[in-house]
């Protein structure tokens, strides 16, 4: 019985768990329909994603691809590639530093942009800028990378512009360099960072900022102590969304990196397209997948501060 001071109602409220209304719609004969609705979609995912990944895992333990009657010989040697082929360590490091540079620059450019979008624009202007920022994101990535060759190549816009000012300039060699790859990748993935940061900044209650101001905090202090920590989840998810595909990229390094553009992505591509060493390619893919999964797992554990509702 609830305690009763003589004013409170002596009401014995049933303590039985409430059955969710949604469950009440369920009838037992329903499952064939549910199965029928789900089967096509998950069938496609099974054939086009999950079985391929499983078979690729299987291949990665084979000495050679089992085509043309070659026997199945199991080996771990492809997973030891980094030991047996030391140049791969350089390649892996190039991929990782490409990922770090791209992610870092995207944060440096994207976070202020997201802040500016959330705090310095409003109404239709904000809507238009927002759409302009996410629009390239859905346009063809290959075309966008290609567009940088127009800008960076010898005789391109930058080269021609500088040469017009200083006719005796030696060739710049902007294209086919590490910075060229970074610029192209930042261009490709920056919208992710702006989007995720913008969404988490939008979720910050204006009252928190006002409260901080009322307590005497100056803008920079507000930024450092309030906005930045609350925007951190957006920065984090943006970083994952960028880092993961960048270390797996092969088309951007090929087009913008030329000879220096040898990355994990291009090495893996080579195993499948040129070298036909599918087991090695599979093992390298799975090593990369493992790195990706560890990263995703690590980031999903980062506690997210919840802005008050």
């Amino acid at each position, binding site marked *: *019985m609830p305690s*009763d*001071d*003589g*004013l409170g*109602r*002596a*009401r*014995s*409220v*049933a303590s*039985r*768990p*409430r*059955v969710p*209304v949604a*469950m*009440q*719609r369920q*009838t037992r004969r329903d499952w064939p329909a549910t199965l029928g609705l789900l089967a096509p979609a998950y069938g496609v995912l099974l054939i086009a994603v999950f079985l391929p990944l499983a078979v690729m895992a299987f291949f990665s333990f084979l000495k050679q691809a089992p085509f043309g009657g070659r026997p199945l010989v199991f080996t771990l040697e492809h997973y030891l590639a980094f030991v047996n082929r030391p140049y791969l360590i350089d390649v892996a490091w190039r991929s990782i530093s490409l990922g770090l540079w791209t992610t870092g620059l995207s944060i440096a450019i994207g976070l202020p942009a997201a802040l500016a979008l959330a705090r310095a624009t409003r109404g239709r202007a904000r809507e238009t800028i927002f759409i302009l920022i996410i629009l390239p994101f859905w346009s063809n990535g290959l075309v966008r990378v290609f567009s940088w060759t127009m800008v960076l190549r010898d005789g391109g816009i930058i080269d021609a512009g500088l040469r017009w000012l200083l006719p005796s300039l030696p060739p710049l060699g902007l294209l086919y360099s590490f910075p060229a790859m970074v610029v192209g990748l930042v261009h490709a993935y920056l919208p992710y960072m702006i989007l995720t940061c913008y969404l988490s900044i939008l979720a910050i209650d204006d009252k928190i900022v006002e409260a901080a101001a009322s307590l005497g905090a100056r803008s920079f202090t507000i930024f450092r102590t309030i906005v930045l920590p609350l925007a951190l989840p957006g920065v984090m998810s943006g970083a994952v969304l960028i880092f993961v595909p960048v270390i797996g990229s092969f088309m951007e390094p090929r087009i913008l990196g030329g000879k220096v553009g040898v990355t994990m992505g291009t090495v893996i591509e080579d195993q499948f397209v040129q070298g036909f060493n599918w087991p090695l390619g599979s093992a390298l893919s799975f090593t990369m997948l493992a790195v990706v999964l560890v990263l995703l797992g690590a980031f999903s554990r980062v506690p997210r501060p919840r802005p008050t509702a």
Partner: protein
Amino acid sequence: MSAVAIDGVAQRFGATLVLDDVSIVFEAGKLTSLLGPSGSGKTTLLRIVAGFLAPEAGSVRIGDKDVTMEPVWRRRIGFVFQSYALFPHMSVLENVMYGLERRGMSRRAAGGKAGAALDMVRLPGFADRKPASLSGGQQQRVALARAIVTKPTVLLLDEPLSALDRRLRQEMQVELLRIQRESGLTTVFVTHDQEEALALSDRVAILDRGRIIQSGAPAEIYEHPRTRFAAAFLGDANFLTGTVEGGAIRLGGGALIRAASALPGEGARVTVAVRPEKIVLASPGDATVGGANSLPSTVNAAIYSGAALTYGVTTPDGTAMKVFAQNFDGRILAAGARVTLCWPPAQTVLLDDEGP
């Protein structure tokens, strides 16, 4: 006009028994409320009457037809949802016409009838509006018009007024009652609001944990609740526990109180309920009306609400009680004041169940 007869209905969700052998008749042309806390099974019972759900055991009859296995769309019922469930992509008129057209009426005829139904719920001129542009109360009226325009055999309402604010709710109660009386529809009304149930219903059925624990006319249940739950859920009640002694009840603190009804045998433990408004506060020295119960107590709190006062008092054995008093003379008893609680034996209601 058809009566609805529920016989031995049981329903289980997973391991939870939601309805446990429920039998009740909703009389033709009457408005019956299903009153109970959340989880009592009242909505499930309503959904079984509607046909959204087939009961695991028992039968449902509407009129003289067994409809237990009949799906909702063949039952000719009218259902009003808590959320109104108006179709957002249709105009108000199209919403009301929907059921008529599904039952084969031509668009012209349906339009005419739907217009008349909108007049009945006092929403003329709203026909072409979209539901989203209507206020909550207006949406409620459209939902009602949509449910009754098909001339259903029974009108089922699932907490239809709970989303409205207090004023609007009272207004809609009056309206609902008027429409129910005009249409003469057998109506079942699910609510957890006891005042609403008392104000609207011809009959009330109280549900607790999947069982109907009492049903009858509102006054009958209010004046003669059979269980502690019924007494507490419908209105306010004080509970006293004691032992039968010489045709009266000896309370824990030694006081003897009388009840008008027959008591069980000597020495039995009983619980009685006394409504707070039936109690008169007297000064310890005052003469009491002949035969009235009197129980000395101490005031421990008073709530002043203008026309009325609510006192919290404590009896000698420490039982907390609540007393409503009319504000006759503007005098408020202070905490610590000694009083005597008086009430006629007829207002001592013997409950069926044991005390806690």
